[in-house]
């Protein structure tokens, strides 16, 4: 092995790792002892590796992330498994979903703020039951709206009468890609199996997601949640809940 070959191999060497155990790496390291120029290069290579690694390791982890993961998992544990026939329906829905996803893959514009991404993110966060997303709790929608006002958020939501009449669970004002989002959680009672039936309404400025649906609601399954999305005035709405299209339609009239 000459110095040039040794340098090529040692370019992949990471100080402090188990890389030195590799026989080719070990042979290249032996070459370092014989060649002062190679040794100088190797010393610099290790220093640069260590400096870059230190920079990447310095990226701060959000302080609340660990709690969100653990709480989300605990909530998920309470989800009741679906019975057999529902699984068949789910498989059929998956085929439809797959077809839709393929369509979206080839038709979605190359932007970070696509509506599909916003809707999926919101629905997935609910699916994981991220309780920390709920920043205030109240059974009164007026309290939730007051919370939005206190946080300099809009409250002129164009919600259906059916949604306005439901008791609240709570709400949250947060951001998505640095854009404000308001989330209103509503209590729709329990379903036939006794499972709690919460509805989540996410509100976003329509300018942020220009490819959002229009006034007529569009339905889309995200994981185990059905979503309905529409735009009224300057706001785009995403309603997410367990159930099917017909279940959600009841709240949109």
């Amino acid at each position, binding site marked *: 092995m000459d110095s040039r070959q040794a340098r090529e191999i040692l*370019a*992949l060497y*990471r100080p402090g*790792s*188990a*890389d030195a155990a590799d026989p080719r790496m070990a042979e290249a390291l032996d070459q370092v002892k014989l060649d002062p120029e190679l040794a100088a*290069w190797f010393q*610099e290579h290790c*220093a*640069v*590796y*260590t*400096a*870059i*690694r230190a*920079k*990447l*390791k*310095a*990226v701060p*982890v*959000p302080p609340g*992330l*660990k709690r*969100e*993961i*653990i709480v*989300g*998992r605990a909530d*998920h*544990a309470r989800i009741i498994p679906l019975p057999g026939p529902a699984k068949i329906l789910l498989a059929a829905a998956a085929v439809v979903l797959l077809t839709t*996803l393929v369509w*979206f*893959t080839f038709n*979605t514009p*190359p*932007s*970070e703020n*696509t509506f*599909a*991404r916003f809707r*999926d*993110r919101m629905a*997935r*966060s609910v*699916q*994981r039951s*991220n309780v920390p997303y709920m920043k205030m709790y109240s059974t009164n929608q007026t309290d939730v709206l007051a919370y939005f006002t206190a946080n300099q958020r809009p409250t002129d939501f164009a919600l259906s009468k059916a949604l306005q009449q439901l008791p609240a669970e709570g709400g949250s004002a947060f*951001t*998505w*890609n640095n854009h404000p989002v308001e989330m209103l959680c509503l209590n729709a009672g329990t379903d036939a199996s006794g499972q709690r039936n919460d509805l989540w309404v996410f509100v976003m400025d329509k300018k942020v997601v220009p490819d959002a649906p229009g006034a007529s609601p569009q339905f889309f399954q995200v994981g185990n949640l059905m979503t309905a999305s529409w735009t009224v005035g300057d706001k785009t709405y995403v309603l997410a809940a367990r159930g099917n299209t017909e279940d959600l339609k009841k709240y949109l009239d």
Partner: protein
Amino acid sequence: MHDGRMPDGLDFEGLVSRYYGPLYQFAYSLAGTEADASDLTQQTFYIWATKGHQLRDSAKVKTWLFTTLHREFLNMRRRVVRFPHHELSEMDHELPTISPAMVNSLDAAKVVKLLGEVAEPYQAALTLFYLEDCSYKEIAEILGIPLGTVQSRISRGMAQLQQLILDTAPPSAGTSRKEETRG
């Protein structure tokens, strides 16, 4: 629901404590935003909680988590944009010589941003190379590519990253050895 208990006594919370930081940093290096990185990290543990019991070899937990996060990242990106295919000439992966001072002149966010500018096929391998104490074999398993391809992607990615650092670092941050030897 998967208990998530490992032979070394780690329950789900212990598993999260051990891996959520490295997973987040891996996700951040790939996705470039806190929101996406947090979402990818949460989604990875969510999948672990529902499917982790299928993993037979507990020694592979770390690889499994990183593989899952990377797969979720690719799924997320596919919905937004199809990446152009980058092909570099052989000469492109000759390492530019930079100094530690050049790296240290940049803050962590800038280095992550530059990592995000490296051609997409090389990013994940390069991130694991720098961030994680994974063997090359483990990186190959995480990314689902042959060992030789891992090494090639790291070499090329490293060359791109170091060139980006060379182009970005202030001149006062230090000279490259090429320049030194020229003098």
